[in-house]
C-alpha cells in the first residue's frame, strides 16, 4: 500500500521557486506559441489545428491531444465562446484538473509498520535513476530524515561506484554487494540494515531495464517480493523515473512497470532540457499515476516536488 502521507508531505514542503527556474528555459517557447496563435480573436478551424499541433509537438500524444481539443470544442459550442483567450484558459484549467486528479486525497493511509519507508526506484536505461536518487536523498536529509541507499544495480559497470559518490555527497550509508550479485539479496540486506539502524527512509537503486525484457521485469518483481517478506507493506513507494525527452513510449513504460511492480509515482527527470515532458499528461490521465518530483539539472539540489498548477502555469507562461 502506498504511503499517502508522504505524498502530502511532498506537496506541502515543496520548494516551488525552483520549478520556475527549471521550466523557464524550455517551456515558454512551446506554449507561448499557443498564446500567439490565439491572440487573434474569433475561433476557426485553424485555431484548433494549431492547438493540436502544439500539443502533439509537446509529446502529449495524438489521442490525448484529440480528446482535449474535442472537449474544448464542445465547451466552446455550449458556452458560445468567441474569444480564443477563453479557450486557452479552459485548456489550462483542464490540464490542471487532469494532473491533479490522481493525487490521493486520503492521508490517513501510510506506512503501518514501524520500519523505514522503502522507496524502490525503477526505470528504463539512462533515464537518470541514480542521479535522481542522490537528489531525493538530499531532499529528505534536508527535512531531517535519516536516509540509506541500497545499491541493487549490480549489472551496469560502475553503477555501485556511481551511487557511492552520491552517498558521500549527501552523507548517507550504502548497502552494496559485489557487481553481478543478486539485486534482491542487496535489497533484503539493506532493509534489514535500515531497520536495525532505525533509518527513516531506504531508497533502492535498481538497474535500468527496458520494460520489454521479461527476465529483467521478473527480477524487479522479485526485489519487490523479497522486500515484502521483511515488511508486508514494503515497498511503500515505487517511483518510475521517466526521462522528460521520452516520447509516447513513456506511456508504455509507465503501464508495464505499473503492472509489474505497481508504480506509486513518477519522477520526471531532465526537465531542464528543451523537451516538453508532455507524455506525463496521458500517464496521469490514462493510468492515474501521479507525477511526484522533477529533476531540473545536474546538481544535488536540482529537485522539486511536482505541482500541477505551477507546472501548467509554467507551460503557458510567455515571459520569453
Amino acid at each position, binding site marked *: 500500500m502506498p504511503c499517502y502521507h508522504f505524498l502530502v508531505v511532498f506537496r506541502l514542503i515543496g520548494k516551488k521557486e525552483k520549478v520556475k527556474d527549471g521550466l523557464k*528555459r*524550455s517551456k515558454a517557447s512551446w506554449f507561448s506559441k499557443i498564446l500567439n496563435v490565439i491572440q487573434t480573436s474569433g475561433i476557426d478551424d485553424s485555431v484548433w489545428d494549431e492547438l493540436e*499541433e502544439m500539443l*502533439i*509537438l*509537446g*509529446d502529449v*500524444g*495524438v*489521442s490525448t491531444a484529440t480528446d482535449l481539443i474535442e472537449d474544448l470544442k464542445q465547451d466552446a459550442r455550449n458556452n458560445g465562446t468567441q474569444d480564443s483567450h477563453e479557450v486557452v484558459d479552459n485548456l489550462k484549467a483542464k490540464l490542471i484538473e487532469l494532473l491533479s486528479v490522481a493525487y490521493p486525497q486520503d492521508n490517513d493511509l501510510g506506512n503501518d509498520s514501524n520500519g523505514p519507508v522503502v522507496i524502490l526506484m525503477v526505470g*528504463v*536505461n*539512462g*533515464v*537518470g535513476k*541514480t542521479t535522481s536518487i542522490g537528489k531525493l536523498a538530499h531532499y529528505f536529509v534536508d527535512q531531517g530524515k535519516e536516509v540509506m541507499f541500497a545499491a541493487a544495480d549490480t*549489472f*551496469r*559497470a*560502475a*553503477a555501485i*561506484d*556511481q551511487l*557511492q*559518490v*552520491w552517498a558521500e555527497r549527501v552523507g548517507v550509508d550504502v548497502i552494496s554487494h559485489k*557487481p553481478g550479485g543478486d539485486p534482491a539479496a542487496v535489497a533484503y540486506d539493506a532493509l534489514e540494515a535500515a531497520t536495525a539502524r532505525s533509518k527513516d527512509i531506504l531508497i533502492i537503486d535498481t538497474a535500468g531495464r*527496458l*520494460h*520489454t*525484457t*521479461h*527476465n529483467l521485469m521478473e527480477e524487479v518483481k522479485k526485489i519487490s517480493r523479497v522486500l515484502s517478506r521483511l515488511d508486508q507493506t514494503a515497498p511503500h513507494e515505487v517511483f518510475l523515473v521517466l*526521462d522528460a*525527452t*521520452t*516520447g*509516447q*513510449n*513513456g*506511456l*508504455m513504460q509507465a*503501464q508495464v512497470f505499473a503492472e509489474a511492480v505497481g508504480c506509486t509515482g513518477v519522477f520526471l527527470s*531532465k526537465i*531542464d*532540457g*528543451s*523537451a*516538453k515532458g*508532455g*507524455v506525463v499528461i496521458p500517464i496521469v490521465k*490514462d493510468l492515474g499515476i501521479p507525477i511526484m518530483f522533477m529533476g531540473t539539472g*545536474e546538481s544535488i539540489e536540482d529537485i522539486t516536488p511536482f505541482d500541477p498548477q505551477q507546472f501548467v502555469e509554467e507551460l503557458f507562461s510567455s515571459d520569453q
Partner: protein
Amino acid sequence: MFEALSDKLTSVFSRFQNKGRITEKDLEEGLKEVRLALLEADVNFRVTRKFIDDVKARSIGKDVLESISPGQQIIKIVHEEMTSILGTESSTLSGGNQTPNVLMLVGLQGSGKTTTAAKLSLNLKRSGNKVMMIAADLRRPAAIDQLETLGKQLDISVYSDRSETDPIKLVQNGIAKAKHVEATWVLVDTGGRLHIDSELMRELQDIKKSLNPSETLMVVDSMTGQDAISSAQGFHDSIELTGLIMTKLDGDARGGAALSISQMTNLPIKFIGTGEKTDALEAFHPERMASRILGMGDVLTLVERAQEAFDHKQMQNLEQKMRKSSLTLEDFLQQIQQIQKMGSVGQILDMVPGFSSISRKLSTEDADGKGLKKVEAIIYSMTPAERNRPDIIKGSRRRRIATGSGTTPYDVNQLLNQFKQMQRMMKQISSGKIPRNLAGLFR
C-alpha cells in the same frame, strides 16, 4: 492504448489489399491512419506532415489508381518514401589516413554514449584494429570507472586521468598516448550535455577542434519524442556531426525519432544498439528499418541470422527426412534449439511479415525461451524408441516421462500434439501447400 506502428499500418493496408482498386477517398482514409501511426511512433509532427503529403502526391497519379493492385503500389510508395528519408544506403565508419583515426561520441545525458563506446570499440577491434578509448566524461560520477570496467571486460585500453579537470588537455594527452602505442582508432567518450547549455556546447566545440575527428557521432535514444529534432539539430549546428547512432532499439519504441532526425539533418544513421551486451551493435540498414516500421517484416535480418545459426549439413539431412516424412522428436528438439540461437521466439516472429501480432500473444514462457527448457526436459526423459516413434507413448509411458522431466502428463501431451502438427505441416510444405495454421505451432 496504442499499438506498435507496424501493426497499425498492417491493418490499414490490409484494407487496401482486399480491394482491387482504391478511390481517392480510400487513399485519404488510409493515409490518415498512417499519419496517426507515425505520430504515435514519435515521428515529428512536421516530418509526418511532409511524409503524408509526399506519399499522397505520388499515389494520386493515374498509374497507381488504375493499376491492378493499388494497395501493393501504395505500400511500395510508403516504403520507398520512408527508406529515402532514412538514407539511401547503409553506411560504415569513414576513417581517414590519420593515425590514429578519431571518433567522438556526443549526446544528451543517458542516451548510451559509454555503452556505445564499448560496443563500437569491440566492433573495430574485431575487424582488426588496435583501439583505444578516452574517458572524457569528467562530470558524471563514476563515468570513468564505467568505461574502465568495460575496457577491462573487452581487453581494450582506456586512457583516463582522474586528476585532470580540463577535458581538452585530457583528450590531447590521450591522443599522444594513442600515437605512442600506435592505436589505429581512438574513441572519445564525452560527457552527456543539453544542446541548450551554451557553456557545455562551447566546451564540446573546443574538444572537437583539438581532436579533429574523422567521425563525430551523436548517440540518440530511440525512445526520444518530438524534441529529437531540436536536440540533434542543436548538436549538429554547434559541432557539425557526421552521423548518428540510435540506441535501445531492442525495446518496443518504433524509432520514429530516427525518421525525424534523418529528415531534418540528412545525417546518416551508422549503427543501432540492440541490447545491453557489448556485442549488441548492428549496422543500420534503411531498407530494413523501413520494412520493420511498416510491418513488412525484417526478412533480411532473419535470413542473415538463420544463416549464422543453421548448420548446412544438418539442413540437408533434415530436408531428406522431411521428404520422407520421417522426422523424429530428436529432430524436433534440434530444430527448436537452432531457432533459439536466432533470438527469442518473440523476436523472430516480429521479423516475419504478418507475425508481429502473434508474437504479442505468445505466453511469456514461449517468448523468453523457458518453454524450450521444458521441451528439452521432456524429450530427454524419453527412451530412443519413444523419440523415434512417439506414437507408442500412451498412459504409463506418459506418466513416467512427466515424472522424469518434472512436468505434467498434460505438458507431455501438448508437446506430442505440437509435434504431430509439425509433421502434418511439413508434409503440406513438401507437397507444395502452405500451411495456414503456422500460428498453431506457437499455441
